């Protein structure tokens, strides 16, 4: 998992809770990297799961909800860090369609070792977009949080529903976005 996700997670925890909570979850999770995250590094996704698990232990908020919230937060950070991916895109459907074929391709150019989830889509009608998330890591909640924030970013009235697909929990999911 790319370092930017960890850096943003740590920043979010520090901003939402406190530096102590950050220190506590790192102590509790005891990540191999020692919690010294840099945006240009790459770390095991297990460290993220451990950190979130530790945060859940402290805050008593369920892990899926924490990850979902982090997804909401992460989209705003992406808009701020990588505005070029949002420039000239006017709506959520258009943006989501660029993830697999454009954004992920650009990420791979810079970080050939990055392991990215597969984000496929289909359009049964003009008003419906079906997004299929498949990953080796269980971050469907993160994806859901990102999609939700994306709809908000474009200020559209779109209903988002989720259906988990067969496989390990959280690794395969289908999201249906329906314009209202």
């Amino acid at each position, binding site marked *: 998992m790319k370092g930017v996700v960890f850096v943003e997670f740590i920043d979010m925890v520090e901003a939402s809770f406190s530096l102590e909570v950050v*220190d506590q979850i*790192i102590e509790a999770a005891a990540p191999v990297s020692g919690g010294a995250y840099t945006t240009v590094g790459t770390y095991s996704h297990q460290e993220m799961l451990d950190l979130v698990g530790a945060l859940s232990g402290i805050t008593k908020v369920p892990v899926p909800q924490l990850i979902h919230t982090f997804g909401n937060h992460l989209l705003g950070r992406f808009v701020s860090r990588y505005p070029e991916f949002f420039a000239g895109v006017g709506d959520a459907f258009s943006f989501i369609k660029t993830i697999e074929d454009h954004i992920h391709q650009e990420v791979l150019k810079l970080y050939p070792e990055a392991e990215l989830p597969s984000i496929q889509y289909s359009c049964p009608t003009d008003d419906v977009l079906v997004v299929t998330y498949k990953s080796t890591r269980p971050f469907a909640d993160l994806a859901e949080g990102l999609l939700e924030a994306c709809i908000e970013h474009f200020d559209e009235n779109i209903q988002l529903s989720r259906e988990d697909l067969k496989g390990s929990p959280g690794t395969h999911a289908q999201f249906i976005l329906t314009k209202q």
Partner: protein
Amino acid sequence: MSDDVFVRRLDRERRARIEAERLLENKSRELYLANQSLKGLTETLEKQITDRTADLVIARDEALSASSSKSRYLAVMSHEVRSPLNGIIGALGLLTDTTLDTEQLQYTNIARKSAASLLSIVNNILDFSKIEANKMGLEPASFDVRELIAGVIDAFEIVASENSTNLVCEIYADAPKYLIGDGGRIRQVLVNLVDNALKFTTGGEVRITVGLESVMSDKIWLLFGVKDTGVGISEENQVHLFKEFWSQSPESSGAIVGTGLGLPISNRLIKIMGGEMGIESSIGEGSLFWFSVPFDKVPFDKLERGEKHLQENTGYPATEVQQSLSGRILLAEDNTANQMIAQAMLTKIGLHVDLAVNGTEAVEAISSRPYDVVLMDIDMPEMNGIEATRLIRKFSDASRASTPIVALTAYAMKGDRERFLAEGLDDYVEKPISRAGLVACLSHWLSKIPGPSEVVPDSDVPDESLFSVTTLETMIAEIGEENLSPLIDVFLNELDSRVDLIERAAAEGNADGLAKECHPLKSSAASFGAFGLSKLAREIEEKAMHDDLAAAQTTSRKLRKVAQETRDQLISVIEARR
């Protein structure tokens, strides 16, 4: 918040920075290597492009060289094949002029026809090759449409009569007389069409028609037709007519089938001229081949001059008038047969000819005396015509250095004329030489030279009877009226005995005697204004001097009649003065 938390955070920050620096260092190295690799790839690509470009340049040069070789090969073939043919055709022509029995004449005629046919085939193949190589250029000049048609009719008159076919022409009044275009190529197309028509027609009619089709701004479109009453061509065969190497066997005549190039070449020539060609035919009802071609109008001032020229010579076909020239020509030609032919032609049109068999001799001849025109063969042993021309042009005597030099050669590719002109030659006559071509060229170059023909006043009597009263009167003024009568008596007495002597020398085949007797007559007759007689005497003298006894004998047959006319004219002038 304890200090430990901050310390740990700082520690994490420091380690993160170190890790980030390490990763950046690695990424930089990767980028550097990738950049190097790209640079290498670019260089390889550039080398590949350079190599490929060089290969293409070599391939292009090879293709150009091959094309150039092909052109050179054609030029050489043209020379190699046409030179000996020229010799054969010319020698056969001269042979026909000698005394032959019926059988010999028959064989000679067969040989002449076959040689002419071979020349036509060679010309067709060369034309076709020129067209294929896009080297077929047109040579537009003003020409007389009626004269052109008359020439075609003349050429086929005998064939048509042998075939019991009426060969007629119909020139509509609306067709302009003079036009600017490539008359030679129009003639070639007409000759081809008439030749074909006669091959497929027996006992009927072949009709050449010419009429005005339209006038568009500065272009005049003429419609030519060649209509026969022959076997006709099926619709199926009409499709193939303009394809190369296709020919229909003339069922009725059994004549030789040609290369199948005549019609395709004609069609292509007409297209090159911007015109079009077509056919209307049905089996048993004959065929009509037609073509329409745009010509330029002859500018008014030139037209006026042309008409004036004809008016001045009323009673003469234009070609006849031009076939009498005067001047001294140096003929540089190594091939004996070609020498004989060119010399015979030149002498027949009244020119004095000296010979040189190579460039060295030509240069020597010009350094020893002036010439009006040099006819220079290009390919000669020891020194070729171009080298000789270069040396002549360097003469310190400006008038000799600027002697008009006309290339006389079988090189016939487009561009040769320009090449010869660039080498310092003034003009070009293509072999096999024709009398008309030679006359056309030499009349131009000799027109700058004053000669007897220029002092002859305009007259509508034939050359041999030309008599200038003005010249006679000038002489009378110079010698005095009182001396005229005895002088004329002496002259007329002398004239009678001289004509006898000339006729005797001719009958005995005595060339020296002919020359000896004609020489004084030439100048004395001119003194009395009897230019026709003088010219005739000069012709006989020159022919006799140049071992052309047969021609001298033929010409001498006219002498008595012209002498009698001169006598009558002199007497009538004297009578009038009394």
